[in-house]
């Protein structure tokens, strides 16, 4: 595989890192510094911009892949989506029975699981086609 095809994927990884840093900084600032409502809303929406850039470069990166790599990505996304749905569904049902601690199971706490599910899917799918 030539380097020209790797470039869009490296760019996606770079934007993923930028989004992660932005998200972490915003999360830390909101939690620790307790800014006002308007600043808080701006900080909450700031990662949306970097996330949109990340998704845009990710889609461009996938488009530059060959058909086997696209299949791997697609299967990884399906696995991640299924696991994420399963998690949300289970948490939703559990929340009816026991009160889940919002400091452990709030929206922001489930975000890292989605990334973990994607990498689980990627490992499974890569093994299938290796």
């Amino acid at each position: 595989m030539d380097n020209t095809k790797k470039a869009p994927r490296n760019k996606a990884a770079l934007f993923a890192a930028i989004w992660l840093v932005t998200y972490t900084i915003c999360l830390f600032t909101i939690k620790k510094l307790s800014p006002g409502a308007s600043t808080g809303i701006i900080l909450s929406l700031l990662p949306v911009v970097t996330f949109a850039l990340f998704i845009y470069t990710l889609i461009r990166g996938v488009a530059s892949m060959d058909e086997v790599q696209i299949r791997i990505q697609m299967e990884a996304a399906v696995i991640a989506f299924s696991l994420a749905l399963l998690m949300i569904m289970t948490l939703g049902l559990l929340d009816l029975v026991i009160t889940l601690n919002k400091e452990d199971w709030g929206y922001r706490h489930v975000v890292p699981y989605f990334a973990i599910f994607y990498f689980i899917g990627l490992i499974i799918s890569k093994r299938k086609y290796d």
Partner: protein
Amino acid sequence: MKNTIKVERAKKNWTQADLAEKIAVSRQAVNSIETGKFVPSTVLALKMAGVFGTTVEIIFQLENTD
């Protein structure tokens, strides 16, 4: 679906990486097609036939289970 990619590569003395470069895909793609884990698109199959100087029917054959 069975294929004769390995045989055709051997005739040309090409590695999987050589073939991958010629048809502009990853070596992993060539490996998964060669081992029958992935069935390529018509375009890719035609590209393969083109670089081997043969036809798609020679490289790919249906099995009874297909």
